[in-house]
């Protein structure tokens, strides 16, 4: 097949996945939050309110899109794209199975971190261009959060990379096959401190409640998105849900064995072509469900409390744990050789 055609088809697949994810996740968020808050969530449109989010998308698409007079027009229009595109690009490296990957990048993990770090730039553009003090404050918080979470997050992922010996996400998944002591799945979740550090940093990255101060609605109205409406707002909104999906997918890949099932040989799973991607998505959604439960339960921390957490706890502990993991790996190698 034509290489360009393949590229375009793969791009469209990523786009479709992102859009469908967005719609499903919004519905899921409403339902999960509803249940947590002793209410039902959307019930009127379609069975169990299933059509509510498609209708919302239609509404966003058909709404008039006013541009406020005092905004910096070029930046104002560009910002949603700068937020949206990196989020889409991150889908490229996700390993849905050994064969189902949009692009099998040797440095997949690094690639995802690299593109995701562009997003706060777009948020800062949106906040600055809006010429609104609330937007600016929200954008500054987002940037502050980014410099806080990014280093610890990478540092918390590195122990996994050291254990797997690769930055390729597919290799990391394959390294987690099999069992330890015949019963315990060989997942990297047993590297508990790395998991906890990665999880907290990820909460900050995705702007989940306790760390959603970039758009804290009770303080900053709507944060950086205050002046946006219609589909431009939709893009900002969508990229947020997409980030949640990417973070959850990364968590599954790094710590929960990706598309694999415990005690089932990887070759047996791969025999059924569609099963690994389905497993991967199901696992990701389970993680997202827990993220939503957190969102519906906790209050928000203050911005300085988050910065203190990032710089005084996450960064030193992730560095320390990186060193400890290195020593442990070395010790286990020596022991293995000695035996």
């Amino acid at each position, binding site marked *: 097949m034509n290489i360009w055609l393949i590229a375009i088809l793969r791009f469209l697949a990523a786009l479709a996945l992102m859009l469908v994810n967005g719609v499903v996740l919004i519905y899921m968020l409403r339902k999960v*939050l509803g249940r*947590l*808050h*002793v*209410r039902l969530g959307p019930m009127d449109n379609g069975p169990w309110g299933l059509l509510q989010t498609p209708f919302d998308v239609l509404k966003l698409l058909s709404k008039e899109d006013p541009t406020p007079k005092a905004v910096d027009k070029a930046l104002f229009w560009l910002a949603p794209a700068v937020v949206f595109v990196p989020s889409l690009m991150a889908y490229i490296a996700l390993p849905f199975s050994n064969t189902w990957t949009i692009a099998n990048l040797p440095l997949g993990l690094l690639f995802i971190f690299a593109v995701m770090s562009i997003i706060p730039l777009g948020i800062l553009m949106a906040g600055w261009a809006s010429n609104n*003090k*609330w937007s600016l*404050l929200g954008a*500054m*918080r987002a940037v502050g959060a980014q410099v806080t979470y990014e280093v610890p997050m990478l540092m918390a992922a590195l122990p996994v990379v050291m254990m797997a010996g690769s930055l390729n996400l597919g290799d990391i998944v394959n390294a987690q096959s099999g069992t330890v002591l015949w019963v315990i799945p060989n997942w990297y979740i047993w590297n508990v401190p790395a998991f906890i550090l990665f999880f907290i940093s990820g909460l900050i990255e995705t702007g989940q*409640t*306790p760390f*959603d*101060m970039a758009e*804290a*609605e*009770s*303080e*900053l*109205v709507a944060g950086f998105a205050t002046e946006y409406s219609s589909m431009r707002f939709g893009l900002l909104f969508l990229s947020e849900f997409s980030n949640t999906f990417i973070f959850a997918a990364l968590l599954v890949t790094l710590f929960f064995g990706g598309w694999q099932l415990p005690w089932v040989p990887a070759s047996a799973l791969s025999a059924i072509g569609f099963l690994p991607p389905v497993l991967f998505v199901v696992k990701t959604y389970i993680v997202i469900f827990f993220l939503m439960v957190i969102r*519906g*339960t*906790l*209050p*928000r*921390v*203050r*911005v*300085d*409390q988050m*910065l*203190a*957490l990032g710089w*005084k*706890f996450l960064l030193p502990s992730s560095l320390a744990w990186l060193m400890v993991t290195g020593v442990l790996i070395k010790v286990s190698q020596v022991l293995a050789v000695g035996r």
Partner: protein
Amino acid sequence: MHTPDPTAISGALDAIGVSAGVEEVAKLGVVCRVAPADSRSTLRAFKEGDLAFGFLVDLFGVDTGEAVDVVYHLRSFSRDEDVYVKVEHEYGANLESMWDIYPAGLMPERELAEMFGLTLSGHPNPRRLLTTDGCPPFLLKGSEIRAEDEVRHRERQVVAPENLERTVSSLEPEQSPHAAPAKMPLQEGIAAPSAVQPVDLPAGLHRAPTGVDELQTERLILSMGPQHPSTHGVLRINLEIDGEEVIGSECHIGYLHRGIEKLAETRRFTALGPLMDRGDYLASMHAELATSLATEQLLEVEVPRRANWLRVLMGELNRISSHIVWYGPNGLDAGSMGPFLYVFRDREYMLDILEDITGGRMMFNYMRPGGVLRDITPEADGKIRKFLKFFNQHIDENDEILMGNEIFQARMKDLGVFSKEGALAFGLTGGNLRASGFDFDVRRDQPYAAYPEMDFEVPVSTDGDAYARCRVRLDEMRQSARMIQQCIDGLPEGDFTAKVAKVLRPPAGETYAAVESPRGELGVHLVADGSDSPYRMRYRPPTLFALQAGEQALPGTLIADSVVLMGSLDFVLGEIDR
């Protein structure tokens, strides 16, 4: 309440060379009349001398037809005495600010000056409070509220023409027309109620130090409100911010001003209830009760015992439903949506009960002079019993779900600390005062209705921070549930209202009645002239005093804290603006 000794007062005033007319007025108490020139030394003597009336309950004016009577309502908590200092000012005269003696007068003085056409001198922020420039002095007898009067228009006159071309940020903070006035010099000896004082935060979490390396960034004026989601009504706070830190604040109120005090002068005594409902719309029962009590005091009506018990029952039900609207949004301010929806289950059920009994869910008009509107039905009785059963369970749940949350505690603790002296100086009452360690509750210390027969405790905390205010209110809900149980079990037989005339014509006189509303001491000062409507009605809004204290406490906090701090003071803008 005791009556102070008039001779002691006149003796003390004579000692400083002030000739005052001290007399005891029936139904009101001791009134001390001084000339405007002597008002400062008189108030200082009351505050600092042996008299020790340290608390300014209220400050308002009465248009007597010849002059404006400025009334300072003072209280001594230790002796449980009230005294009224009246100063007669000519129309259009200059009112000297007494805020350095009684800081609680900061906002009431501004209101008084604008409502009676006086000029204000010596005040740190002598602008109008409730209305904008061009409004007639509404509370003078001759003036009327007309449809064409713009009570609160956009503040076009606030910006001086020569400043219009310059942006706010290019101005020095002192010059800026929008800027909050520089931090008010707090009175010496009174601990600053602001949260700037360095405090030890819980381990691991610290507030950003002020002015790191003397780094000064450009100051922004942030206009928070009136349509901001977390200002609990239509409040506008102008925040002067340096990054995330608030360095100055000024509250703009009056967006809900309906002139309740003025309208009361054209309503019959029986029709005051619906008017007062629109003040504190979350706890209407209490405002109604205050007017009813004042009217009864003027009429000297004896209220049947059952009516008094019903008043307590409904008042406490309303207190719980009002506290719920504090509790939920307080969590919402801190970013937690769950507790809000959890407590609203209880509130829905509660409003159904109130609707069954009174016919209204918000504006009850249930407390009437002489008693209450109607008796409690057996169905409502059953519903209340059912409510109590699950409420006592839910309240423990609520206590854990929000108050037990560590993030919430880290947000609330050591935020907006008011010392006991600071809280008293700024006129805080109710839960806000009790959270600062001052044990005063109108229900227990100046009992009304059937409260003397009730068995309840008054929760007090000594921390004075936002978390203490939460804790006090949550415990208050438990005590309210206890009282409701007592009312339901021991409701005495009898009439639910005394026999009162259809048209009430109290004899000429003056009186003050206070109730403990969920937000503090809600007082009604009634002046009757023998006709069927009040000559003057003053509504003491407890939350106005909370607001002015909050305004003082804001500088030094972060933007995120400012929302939580103002929320923790639990105010209702309907009552502040009246």
